[in-house]
């Protein structure tokens, strides 16, 4: 029964990773940039949720929506200011800029409000119920349902709406999409907005679940979510979800086996094994490089 409990913990953690990983994978799919600042958007989302609950006295769902909206705007601003000029620059220049943006957000937040951690308010009663002998808290159910709803919503946006169609077209072939009359700039902005909104939601959920947030909290989940994206095949949306869930479950199992200090290493070992043996990820197809 212990295992069911761990599995549920793993899935809860994994769905947080999956939400962040979706943003990575969408941005990578469309402009081939590892957006290092994405983990920090997650952090900012968590803080916006925190302040809207404690200062403005909002409930969980209004805070979640406010945080998603603010992060969407924030993501678009980052893209317009820092990344837009670099569309045609080398990949290394873009990556270094992303690292710079990430550091700027982290230390900007520390500069504004200090580095001390904050305890997330308890928005849900800690009620739990029995399921096959395992204790399942309301929170994990909630996290799971919010993540599932957001992912279904994303699938809907990507597959059924005009913006989603444009996003798929741009990620398939930017030049051809431009020739077909798609506004590439707006599509990229929309991608950043959606990805950042998901990261903001993940931030609020993370805060509610782990109860402790601080300005540097985005770094490790950010890198792990990237691992999840690579695991599932970067650029592939269902891949990011599966990758996130797998990573969350593996990490929980590693901790449950008593190697909790090695938990972070597990993610990186998975990353390296995947990169070496199947660089295109679980769902990816092999692409040939053109000279």
């Amino acid at each position, binding site marked *: 029964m212990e295992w069911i409990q761990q599995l549920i913990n793993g899935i809860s953690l994994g769905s947080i990773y999956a939400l962040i990983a979706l943003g990575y994978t969408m941005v990578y799919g469309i402009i*081939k940039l*590892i957006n290092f600042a994405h983990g920090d958007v997650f952090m900012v989302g968590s803080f916006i949720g925190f302040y809207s609950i404690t200062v403005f006295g909002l409930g969980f769902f209004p805070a979640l929506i406010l945080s998603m909206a603010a992060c969407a705007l924030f993501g678009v601003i980052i893209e317009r200011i*820092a990344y837009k*000029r*670099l569309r045609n*620059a*080398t*990949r*290394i*220049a*873009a*990556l*270094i*800029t992303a*690292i*710079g*943006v*990430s*550091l*700027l957000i*982290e*230390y*900007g937040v*520390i*500069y504004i409000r200090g*580095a001390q951690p904050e305890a997330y308010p308890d928005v849900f009663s800690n009620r739990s119920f029995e399921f096959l002998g395992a204790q399942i808290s309301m929170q994990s159910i909630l996290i799971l349902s919010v993540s599932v709803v957001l992912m279904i919503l994303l699938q809907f946006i990507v597959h059924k709406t005009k913006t989603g169609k444009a996003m798929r077209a741009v990620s398939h072939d930017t030049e051809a999409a431009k020739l077909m009359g798609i506004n590439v700039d707006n599509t990229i902005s929309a991608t950043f907005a959606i990805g950042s909104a998901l990261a903001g939601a993940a931030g609020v959920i993370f805060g509610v679940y782990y109860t402790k947030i601080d300005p540097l909290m985005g*770094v490790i989940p950010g*890198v792990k979510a*990237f*691992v999840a994206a*690579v695991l599932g095949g970067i650029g592939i949306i269902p891949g990011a979800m599966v990758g996130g869930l797998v990573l969350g479950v593996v990490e929980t199992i590693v901790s449950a086996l008593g190697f909790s*200090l*090695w938990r*972070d*290493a597990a993610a*990186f*070992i998975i*990353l*390296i094994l995947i*990169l*070496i043996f199947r*660089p295109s990820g679980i769902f990816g197809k092999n692409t040939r*490089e053109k*000279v």
Partner: protein
Amino acid sequence: MKKSKQFWLFIIAAVLVYTVVQVFIANGTMNQFYSNTLIFIAINIILAVSLHLVIGITGQFSIGHAGFLAVGAYISAIVTMKLDLPFFVAIIVGGIIAALAGLIVGIPSLRLKGDYLAIATLGFAEIIRIVFLNIDYVGGAAGMQVSHLTTWTYAFVCLVITIVVIVNFTNSRHGIAAISVRENEIASDAMGINTTYYKVVAFAIGSFFAGVAGALYSHNFYIIQPSQFGFLKSFDILIFVVLGGLGSLSGAVLSAILLTVVSTYLQGYPETRMIIYSLVLILVMLYRPKGLMGTMEITDYFKLWRTPKGGDQHGK
């Protein structure tokens, strides 16, 4: 002939710098603070130059340099503190083990390119850090006591050796092959260059000197902890190389000096320092993506100035 003339000029200049500083330290004109800053500058230059070989010359985007720094720091600390061997042995052993770590990391991960290599090296550095965190022999998270053995002499000798080796490597056949890998990997592969071999060699040499810097680094403090070798340390080293110019050794040296001085003065305000660093990084990438000096060296500027028309247009 010309190359060897340059080499001796460099050695004479190095000896001069060393003697002047040593005299100032010996007669007490230069206090502990300044001499420590100078040692720190030397360590950072070694780090910058060793990463320059990997990123600037070979074009392999590695952002896990702090991992090799950590290997050098910990191995050398074990050699001096646990095995009671002299410091110079510790420096060499630290370098060699770091080079071995570089080989272990390099052989599998150098099959990757660009972003993927970057993220893999970042992952490897983090694994190295977590390994040290979990070994009780080196103190785990609490860290390890190290005696203060790094002196200006050690730091400067290591610095000169690093620069000489890396300049000679760059100008050798191997270095030119490495530059061709940087310029276009597929094309140089097609020309019959064993790209994997050169990438791994450059990576191992870079790791060796990062290990040497690690030995100097750990013996410059009284304690080393795994938390000193995280992402931020890797990014610090990366900033030296990027700011100076991707592919310019003198650029890396100058930016290491400049940024070390700046960060020494901003020690009391770590947030301000990081904000300045990140802004510098973003602005340089947006407006000068090749770094301040591009692939130019200091000596190229003198050459241009001496022969205004024509001449060597290296780096243009």
